[in-house]
Structure formats: structure tokens, C-alpha cells
């Protein structure tokens, strides 16, 4: 065998030996026992703290809630996806001081799942968080454990959704529609034939906003003889969304 081949071979053999030795030394113990990973990784993972208890445990004590929920639209939603990791709650029940899980009551919690997103599967109940009954907490209308829509939509919102929702956000949110519009019952079933009247006079607004009116003191008052004379109030202010700075 030519000399150079011998030398190269020795070199290659040294590298191979180094490789084999380092494999023996460096490959972690138990590698490949169950699969392409370290068998002891399982122990490492077992040693991690447990955060979630799983929903089956909850049923032992909160069986009433579990029953309602399992019959509702939220049957597929795990308790802890709303109440957060609750293992410490379950563990703490055997001790003196009970740790209570959080019960998220604000609108953001429900929006995680129900806010409108075009990527969501068709048919999943979605709402526009900004316009869907704004400001009020979701749970004031929907029971989180049985979230059926509370009522079939009725009243003026069934047909005048835009105006109703605009008004709901405005300074006039607490004023009923009928305060400004007199509506016959027939309008609700035969709307075009029976139209409610539209306000015609400044006095309507003056009822509450005129100097000396009997409305609450926080309602801002204007001098009806000077303020915007010659115009109807709603030629300058939106009646359903009044603003003034």
C-alpha cells in the first residue's frame, strides 16, 4: 500500500475512533430507549410542576355546574380554559386556606374565542366585540356555563340595530326610544304602514336640556332663546349620538 494512503487511513481511523469514543461519552444515558430522545427526559418532565387539574376532577364537587355546562353550548369548553390553571385550587381544598381560581368576568375573556376573525371556521358563533352590546359584561346577559343567547331579539333593535347600538354607546344610552318617538304597537308588525312620528320641535330636547328644565342636575343645560336659534337641535347634534365639546 502506498505510504500516503496509509497515513490518510491512520488519520481517518483516528477520527472514527474519536467519533465513537465521543458518542460513548456524550450521548446521554437511555437515549433511544423509547424513541429518538432521552429516556430520562420523561423523568425531567414528570418533575415539572402540575398546573392544570383537568376538568374531570372539578365534576366531583361542582357537579351542578358541570351538569349545566355539559348540556350547553359550552360543553366542549374546559373549565380551566376560563378559570385558568386550577390545580392549586384542588390541592388547597385539603388544607385550611382555600385558593380560589380566578373567575374572569370582563368582556376580554369571552372575546378570546368569540371575537370576529375571518380565519375561524364557518358557523362558530362570532360577534363584533365593539358593537355587540357594548360596555356591558358578557355575563350580564349570557350565563357562562349555559351561554344560550338570553332572548330572541325583540323590541326596536330587531330592525333598528344600527341606531340602537349607536345610541347604546352615546350620552343618550339611558333614554328609551319611546321618550322621543311615540310608536304604535302596529309599527312592530307592520312598520311601513304605521310610522312612528319623528320629532319636529326643539321643545322635545328642551324637555331635558332647557334652562330650568326639571331633568337631573348633571344634564347640561342651554339657553333655548340663544342656543342655535332658528335651527332644529338635530341639524347640529346627532340625536342618537349627541356630542358637544
Amino acid at each position: 500500500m502506498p505510504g500516503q494512503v496509509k497515513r490518510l487511513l491512520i488519520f481517518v481511523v483516528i477520527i472514527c475512533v474519536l467519533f465513537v469514543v465521543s458518542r460513548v461519552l456524550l450521548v446521554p444515558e437511555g437515549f433511544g430507549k423509547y424513541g429518538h430522545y432521552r429516556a430520562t427526559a420523561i423523568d425531567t418532565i414528570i418533575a415539572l410542576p402540575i398546573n392544570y387539574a383537568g376538568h374531570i376532577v372539578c365534576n366531583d364537587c361542582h357537579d351542578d355546574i358541570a351538569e349545566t355546562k355539559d348540556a350547553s353550548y359550552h360543553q366542549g369548553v374546559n373549565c380551566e380554559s376560563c378559570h385558568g390553571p386550577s390545580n392549586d385550587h384542588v390541592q388547597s381544598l385539603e388544607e385550611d386556606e382555600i385558593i380560589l381560581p380566578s373567575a374572569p368576568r370582563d368582556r376580554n375573556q369571552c372575546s378570546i374565542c368569540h371575537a370576529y376573525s375571518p380565519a375561524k371556521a364557518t358557523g362558530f358563533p362570532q360577534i363584533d366585540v365593539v358593537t355587540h352590546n357594548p360596555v356591558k359584561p358578557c355575563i350580564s346577559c349570557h350565563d357562562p356555563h349555559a351561554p344560550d343567547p338570553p332572548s330572541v331579539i325583540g323590541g326596536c333593535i330587531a330592525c333598528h340595530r344600527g341606531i340602537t347600538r349607536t345610541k347604546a354607546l352615546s350620552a343618550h344610552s339611558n333614554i328609551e326610544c319611546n321618550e322621543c318617538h311615540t310608536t304604535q304597537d302596529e309599527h312592530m308588525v307592520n312598520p311601513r304602514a304605521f310610522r312612528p312620528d319623528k320629532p319636529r320641535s326643539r321643545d322635545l330636547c328642551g324637555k331635558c336640556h332647557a334652562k330650568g328644565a326639571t331633568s337631573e342636575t348633571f344634564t347640561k343645560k342651554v339657553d333655548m332663546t340663544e342656543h342655535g336659534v332658528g335651527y332644529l337641535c338635530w341639524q347640529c347634534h346627532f340625536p342618537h349620538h349627541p356630542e358637544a365639546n
Partner: protein
Amino acid sequence: MEGIEQLPEILRLASGYIYPNEAELHWGFLVVIYPYLTGLVAGAFILASLVKVFNVKALLPTYRLSMLTALSFLIVAPLPLLAHLGHPERSLQIFLTPQPKSAMAMFGFVYAWYLMMVLLAEIWLEYRIVLIEKGRTKKGLKKLFYKFVSLWDTDTSKKSIIFDHKAIHFITLVGIPSAFLLHGYVGFIFGAIKANPWWSSVLMPVVFLFSAIVSGIALVLILYTLTSLFKSRPIDMKCLEKLAAFLLYALLVDFSLEMLDFIHRLYESEESIEILGHMITNRLFISLIIVQMLLGTIIPLITLSILHIKKDMPVEFRRLGYLIAAVLIQMGIFSTRWNVVVGGQLFSKSLRGLTIYKVEMLGTEGLFMGILLLVLPLIILYFVAKILPMWQDDPVVDSGTK
């Protein structure tokens, strides 16, 4: 990769509908550099093999240059990946616990095989006599160094030199498929991602390979011209003409393959075609249409063809023409890599929107890091050339083909 803070900014610039996890590109600038570097390696090596296997004597002056270029670029090739992934020490795991089912995890072995069994072996045999000579004449630490790199060999007999030539011939034979493997592998990684219509194509490894050959030849041409200029060595015009001829042929094949891929996609007109068309005309207009197609392919093709046909132009003019064409090609191939890597992540899998990509300046994935990684091989080449003489006429014993 600041991630979430940049999200609103990115989403503002994105157009159409994209999934939230598509806003930010995960394979950035450094992953563009990686296939570019391996391509240069494979290309330079294949050029060298023309001398040894196909006996193209005219290219002999560039044989050593291409081998050393391949080596320097190969040393740097994995660095962008290490910088991109972080935790370089973990890269050794792919050797210690090989996972044969993952193409990506096998990279270490493809790389090691090519570096050790092909490049280093061939270079060692080529320079064996030189190293022995230097080991004899140098003093002190240098002597020890040369003794070590020559593996304490002392045999300079005629017989052993003839054996060297035979062995080199054999290694090059093994080396060609290995070089194909190295770069075809990179194309394979992309081509095998079936969820991505921009990448998923069986042509991908082949296209990568030929663009690799093009870029390798162009690089050697540039380096040959420039080093000759700075060392004021006369340029061997026959060699340069041959290089340019091969560059032209390779570019032609590469161009046809890319056109084939393009027409194939157009004709097939899968549902992705609309968004891809949108991407090409919007996001990739400069890098694909202008730099890759026009500057990087069509103009060099025309220049090289004219110089190929009209042989009676003045030598200086031809040299300049070749140099410019090669530099343009280099830019074009870099754009090709950019368009493949970045382009594949710009469009949404919903096929309804495009995101954007901006290179950072600083940081391990930034522009400066990238530039460093592109310059580093040249610095390495400079030092390697200090140890291993680059030109056929300075070494002690000739090493031409038999």
C-alpha cells in the same frame, strides 16, 4: 426577531389576509446566505473536476484556485445556520444522535463527508509534495506545522507522485456526485416542503445545482482575474476564454431549467398561481425580474454570447466584459437564493395575502453579520493561499495532469 413588538407594524404593511403566524419570516437573510455559499462550493469544485476528470487542460491555471476557493467557502458554509439557530454547541448532537429520517438532520454527515473525504483528501494529495518540501526547509514551529499537515510523510519519489495523480483522479470521480449531493441536498430541503407551492418542486435540486455551477465558475473567474491583476501576473487568456465558455454553457442550461420551471408552473396553474404572480410583480419585482432575470441572466447571457461569437475584439475589452458578466451573474445568483428563501415565506398559506420582510441591521441575523459571513471566506482564502501556493508555476514539482 423582536417578534411581538413589530407585529402591528408588519401587519400594517402586509396586504390581503395572512395568518398571524405568517407575519414574521423565520428564515431570514442568513438562511439566504447558506445555499448561496454551498452553491459556490459545489460550483467551484465541479469546475476543478473539469481539469482532472474531463482533462480540460486550458483550465489548469485555475485548478488550485478553485479547490482552495471551494475549501474556504465550505468552512464558512455552516456558520450562517449556526448563527441563525443559536446554540452552536448543540449542533454536535446531529452527529452524536443521528436521525436518518430527517433530511435536515443529515446535513452534518453530508457536510463532513464532503469536507473530509473529498475536499481535504484531494487538496492534501495535490499539495503533498509542497508540504513535504516546506517541512524540510522551514524552521521551528513552522517546521512542526508543515510536518503535521503533511502527516510526517517524506516520500517524494516519482512513483508516489504518479500515485497521487491517480488518487486525485479517483477522488474527483467520487467528488462530483458528492458535490451534486451537497448542493442538490440544499435544493432538496426546499423542494420537499410540499405545503409550500413556491418551493415544492422536483426540479428544485436540479435548478439549485446548475445555478450553483454557474455561480462557482463565475466566482473563480472573478477571483482569477482580480488576483492576477493585484499580483500583476499575466492572465492566461486561453484559460479565461475556456472559463467564460463554460460559464456561458452552464448559464444557458440554468436559464432553460428555470424557464422550464416557470412555464411548468404557469401551465399547471395551480390555485396558488394567482398569489405567486402577485408576489412576483409586487414584493419580488426588483429582486426577481430586475436583478435575477434581467441583470443576472439576460444581460450576462448576451454579453457572453457576443464575446463568444466575435473573437476579434481587443483582449482588454474581453477581460472587462467577462469580469462584468461574472459580477452580474454573482448578484443574480444571490438574488435567486433570496427569491427562493424569502419568497417562499412572503405569501400566506391562505393564498390570500402577502407579508413583508425587512432585513435588520445589527444582531446575529442582521445585515452586518451577513456581510461578515460573505467576506469571511475570502479572508480565509487569503490565509490558506499563504500556506498552499495557488499557482502551478510556483510549487516545487509540477502537478499537471498526466
